[in-house]
């Protein structure tokens, strides 16, 4: 028996080259993956999906009572959970996805605080000769993907997200944002060479990962701050978009793009290269209701429960926030609820748990909230 949801006519289905979003749902009961994929193709599943693109291991330890020394490595290059742990975290939080994380190395001076936490500091790539220090893992070797392959193959009913950085964020981190920005004028060749290295690596990885059993390709490439892009839309168009276009040619599963800050001036360009969803529509930097109004027919919207509430509010305040998001953004579909960034170490488990509880109360389609 069909549920009444027909095949996609959403533009997402047309702009994702090679991605056939023909979600003719035939079952009464939806599983996590079907729910996520329907939302990604612009439809209303049985209820609003809930996903996270990254979860700090310290937060998970707090949530599940794991007895381990709190530790943060903000370089965040390797996946934080085994498959079993990932499923346990997702089950506990009521998530519809699990994620596997693999990021390129960045070339930064690190520093360690008094609690042993590691943070990225100044960039090391200052001149052409510094490029010689870049040594990325060989993306052509099958061994590089062995763990990811196993993870995705055993995803069960979850939507499996592959999460990585694009080429821009690691280039900016490795040069330092101020040096990167000044080099756009002073040494454009250095910027271009570094971008070529990172994006070239990413093209290979994108193609390989899409041959595995992942459902969603998530690329974090932060390039905005709270009031706008770090550099001009013209620079973005000329310097970065051609790289994204080449990556798009390799991606055969829905592509979700993450950047903190206000990326308003780049959204049309992201849509044009084939991005299926944007995350996290940072609260305070962007208005998710306006994004839904302007782009809800072209993009899946991921976001944006306030991290301030999740970190220092109450479960009741979180419920109100989630309810309002469901009321305003979920109708019509194409919406996946997430935190306003990632589940960081300082968030309160009881507040994060309030997200899925609120979805269970109010998130079933059709949405009926006054």
């Amino acid at each position, binding site marked *: 028996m069909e549920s009444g949801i027909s095949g996609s006519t959403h533009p997402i289905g047309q702009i994702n080259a090679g991605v056939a979003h023909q979600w003719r749902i035939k079952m009464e009961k939806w599983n996590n993956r079907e729910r996520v994929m329907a939302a990604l193709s612009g439809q209303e599943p049985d209820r609003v999906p809930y996903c996270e693109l990254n979860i700090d291991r310290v937060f998970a330890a707090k949530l599940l009572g794991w007895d381990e020394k709190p530790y943060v490595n903000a370089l965040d290059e390797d996946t934080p959970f085994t498959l079993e742990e990932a499923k346990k975290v997702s089950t506990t939080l009521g998530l519809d996805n699990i994620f596997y994380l693999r990021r390129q190395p960045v070339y930064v001076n690190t520093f360690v*605080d008094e609690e042993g936490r590691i943070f990225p500091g100044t960039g090391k790539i200052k001149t052409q000769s510094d490029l010689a220090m870049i040594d990325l893992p060989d993306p052509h070797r099958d061994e590089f993907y062995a763990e990811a392959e196993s993870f995705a193959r055993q995803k069960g009913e979850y939507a499996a997200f592959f999460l990585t950085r694009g080429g821009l964020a690691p280039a900016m981190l490795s040069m330092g944002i101020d040096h990167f920005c000044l080099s756009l004028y002073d040494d454009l060749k250095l910027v271009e060479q570094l971008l070529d290295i990172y994006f070239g690596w990413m093209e290979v990885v994108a193609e390989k990962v899409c041959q595995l059993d992942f459902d969603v390709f998530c690329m974090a490439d932060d390039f905005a701050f709270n009031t706008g892009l770090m*550099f001009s839309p013209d620079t973005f168009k000329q310097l970065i978009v051609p790289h994204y276009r080449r990556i798009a040619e390799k991606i055969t599963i829905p592509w979700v793009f993450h950047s903190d800050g206000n990326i308003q001036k780049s959204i049309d360009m992201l849509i044009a290269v084939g991005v299926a969803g944007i995350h996290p529509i*940072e609260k305070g930097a962007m208005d998710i209701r306006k994004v839904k109004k302007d782009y809800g027919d072209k993009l899946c919207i991921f976001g944006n429960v306030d991290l301030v509430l999740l970190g220092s509010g109450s479960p009741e305040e979180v419920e109100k926030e989630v309810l309002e998001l469901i009321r305003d953004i979920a109708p019509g579909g194409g919406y996946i609820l997430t935190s306003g960034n990632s589940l960081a170490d*300082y968030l309160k488990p009881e507040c994060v748990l309030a997200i899925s509880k609120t979805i269970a109360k109010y998130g079933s389609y059709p949405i009926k909230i006054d």
Partner: protein
Amino acid sequence: MSGEQHTVEELTSQAIKQGAAAEQIIQDSFISAMRIVGEKFGAGEIYIPEMLRAARAMKCGMEILRPLLVGDKVRTLAKVVIGTVKGDMHDIGKNLVAMMLEGSGFEVVDLGIDVPVNKFVDAVKQYRPRFLAMSALLTTTMAQMKMVIEELEAAGLRQTVNVLVGGAPVNQVFADEIGADGFGVNAGQAAELMKTMLN
């Protein structure tokens, strides 16, 4: 205005040769140019690269003028102590604000990141700044800003300094709640706000 430092150096040297006073060059050229840079940045007409170039060019020009400014003429708009609060390792926003302030004619004492409450208070005692600017990127570390203000009160220093706060999770409501004197949404606005407060 376009941030070409060599052009600024040339024009500054040329103005000196033509008899312009160093203070006049600063007031009429540097500070007014940086005001326009701040406005354009705030309006989204220029971006961080252009702002950084302008700040760098202004700094180069200042280096040429500095030897010509003697005695009590060696002055900046005001002194600013700046830092990212304890527990917070984010420095990008704080650095941009510092660069913009320096480029706008302020003297900046940068305490760095992960700055404990007592270090802010000690710096206010030591440097006697007109402004104290604090940055936080985490909701958990924002509370440090309130503690600094309370400690400044306890030390009898609160009335000597204008406290400004900024960072991704910070907003005007929070600034008002903790008793800060101002909130800057970005680097350009922070500099403009301080200039307004000077008047």
